[in-house]
């Protein structure tokens, strides 16, 4: 595939491992008996539950909301009774509240929801719908969608990018949506271009999914929309990298895409936006790839937010004996967890169950200074140096840690198995706190 567009620096070619679920059509998983709805699934101001134990809730009713400019509401995917609100530890040691709702199987809808409607085409109405539908970036970051679609006035955006790169190995959720619901995806992009007044839309797809590219191209009738194949190279789906590949625009360091006139949304997010504006349907379900050698029957599932991992496992006919890793997300950036009662969230793109054979553990050794981590870093950083200064907490030398996009390419490539990405991400946390402390002291 010579001549394909790609990103500027670095990148790796991990085995793609997509075959296990590539040809599996999206299957709707029945609503579970209970759902455990996380109160905070987004980046921004935290939410609080707005229901209490023993309350009765309707499907699509708001159960948690936050205050401030950057937040997102949460809805119940089932009707039934709130049986508990408790605190659990999420992957990555983040504590958060979870609202448990017992499904009464009545499917009692919130008045007016899930009904087709006509819209005025007013931009503010459009944003309000997206905000009230609780839509956040479903690729993994969880940034509230209405904020992303509303850049500052002095930075008008002309280009809307749909991120269909899906560069994480194993994952096929976006791919299946693009193949199975091509018309709806194209309609959603046209709609967003109209509503937000942008000139062109580009759907960026890695070249290992050419069938999706061809299908979308053959169905597309909107001349503003381009379907572009990009190089199959990790992390092609990273926002800044995809923007560069598709537009040759470079987002300045520590700035957001609107600086270069671009707004990016993931495939799943576009679908959710369309469902919200057209059918008054809040975000209460998503497509999740369940895969890995550790699950008996890998699938692509349409799952209600709040469905527990153990319910998903049961629906996929259980785990194999040698499954030793449960991962929320892809194998490069996902988070390992051991509590199978945790729920699927709006940002769960995959649930992977991996065996020892798939994840070969080896001992870490001294750096041999091969400089491969520098070569593969898509942000052009010096990972081995940043790991060293992070471990030693040499704050004055650590500033570059803030530019790490946490893609894990450095750890992947390291021949002596150093935990580069993990150490730098930890360093990022420490450095951010350090900056806050020194600001206070000033």
């Amino acid at each position, binding site marked *: 595939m010579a001549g394909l567009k790609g990103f500027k620096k670095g990148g790796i070619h991990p085995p793609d491992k997509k075959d296990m679920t590539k040809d599996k059509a999206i299957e709707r998983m029945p609503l579970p008996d209970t759902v455990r709805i996380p109160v905070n699934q987004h980046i921004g101001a935290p939410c609080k539950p707005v229901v209490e134990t023993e309350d009765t809730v309707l499907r699509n009713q708001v159960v948690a909301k936050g205050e401030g400019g950057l937040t997102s509401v949460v809805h119940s995917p089932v009707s039934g009774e709130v049986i508990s609100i408790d605190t659990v530890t999420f992957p990555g040691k983040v504590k958060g509240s979870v609202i448990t709702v017992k499904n009464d199987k009545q499917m009692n809808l919130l008045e007016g929801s899930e009904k087709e409607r006509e819209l005025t085409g007013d931009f503010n109405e459009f944003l309000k719908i997206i905000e009230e539908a609780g839509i956040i970036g479903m690729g993994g970051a969880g940034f509230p969608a209405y904020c992303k679609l509303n850049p500052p006035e002095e930075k008008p955006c002309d280009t809307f990018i749909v991120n269909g790169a899906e560069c994480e190995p194993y994952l096929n959720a976006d791919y299946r949506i693009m193949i199975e619901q091509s018309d709806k995806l194209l309609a959603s992009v046209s709609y967003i271009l109209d509503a937000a007044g942008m000139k062109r839309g580009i759907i960026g797809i890695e070249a290992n999914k050419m069938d999706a590219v061809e299908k979308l191209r053959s169905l597309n009738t909107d001349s503003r929309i381009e379907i572009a194949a990009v190089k199959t190279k990790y992390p092609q789906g990273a926002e800044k990298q995809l923007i560069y590949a598709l537009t040759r625009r470079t987002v300045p*360091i520590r700035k957001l895409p609107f600086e270069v006139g671009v707004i990016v949304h993931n495939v799943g997010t576009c679908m959710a936006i369309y469902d919200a504006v057209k059918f008054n349907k809040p975000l209460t379900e998503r497509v999740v790839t369940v895969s890995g050698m550790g699950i008996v029957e890998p699938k692509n599932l349409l799952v209600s937010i709040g469905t527990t991992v153990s319910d998903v496992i049961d629906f996929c006919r259980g785990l194999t004996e040698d499954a030793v890793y449960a991962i929320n997300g892809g*194998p490069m950036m996902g988070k390992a967890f051991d509590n199978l009662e945790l729920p699927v969230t709006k940002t769960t793109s995959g649930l992977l169950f991996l065996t020892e054979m798939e994840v070969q553990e080896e001992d870490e*050794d001294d750096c041999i200074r091969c400089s*491969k981590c520098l070569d593969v870093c898509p942000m052009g950083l010096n990972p081995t140096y940043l790991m060293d200064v992070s471990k030693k907490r040499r704050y004055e030398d650590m500033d570059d840690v803030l530019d790490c996009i946490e893609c*894990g390419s450095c750890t992947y490539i390291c021949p002596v198995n150093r935990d580069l990405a993990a150490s730098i991400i930890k360093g990022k946390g420490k450095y951010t706190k350090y900056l806050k402390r020194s600001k206070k002291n000033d």
Partner: protein
Amino acid sequence: MTENKFIVRAAPFLRTKESTKSIMWAVIIALLPTALWSIYLYKFRAVSVILLTIIFTEIFEIIFLKIRGKKNLWDTAFDGSAIVTGLLLALNLPSTSPWWLCAAGGFIAMLLGKHVYGGLGNNPFNPALVARVFLLLSFPTIMTTWTVGLSADVVSAATPLGMFSTEGAAAVSNMNLWRLFIGLPVTVNGLPVGGGSIGEISELAILAGGLLLMARKIISPVIPIIYIATVFIFTGIFHLINPEMYASPFFFMVTGGLFLGAFFMATDYVTTPLTVTGKMIFAGGCGLITALIRLFGAYPEGVSFAILIMNALTPTIDKYTNTRKFGG
């Protein structure tokens, strides 16, 4: 439900299969054309120098790892790094090296080159070059007694660089540079010329191995290209100014240890800079020092000294060069 116990740790959960061992073995394979050519030229003498040096180096590696109390002793001992050091050292020795010279070289390489600093990854200087320079200074006669290959007798012969150094540019002006590039002896006024360390004779064989390492993405072309180009340009300028005093830049490319050094020793991971800019500075410095020593120095050859001097500057180069950030 299930009885599975899950491991919780940080991402990523996939890793490349490339390891120190696979890298070192690729280097060993890349050195095979050079080693085989030395055996073609020097027959059993090359075989014995290569085997003895590798075996002694490996023995001292095991001893020093043991003394340092390294865990995974046998895995580490056979990660191939000591074999690479031993093989490179052997290729930097004359064919007439006695067994004890090989042993002394292996000892110095492992002790002063590697383990006093804490082993692989922590050594500032290329271990094989530390040993070679130690031997050159300690046993100058043995280390500079050269013989010509493809001859049944041990016939002493000057190296082309040695001839240039003692007799001037005119003496080497008619040498068949293509033969030197391929690695065959040449004659000047009926006398055989073309000796040298057993592994520096054929630039062609070294180039073949170097290209293999580049194709495998184990070394980047930056260092070899800039190193060789700097020597070429620097010697070329002097040749243009005064061709009677300074030999042709092509002559300097196909003689001595330039190719072996540029492809296999100036590219050593541990002892060279991390950043691309750093690598360029390093390689340019190596080229400049090599050319200076060859044209004006007391020694006919300067590759070993050049690389060691630049090794010493590597931490400084690393400190003052950085990567270029995307969007920065």
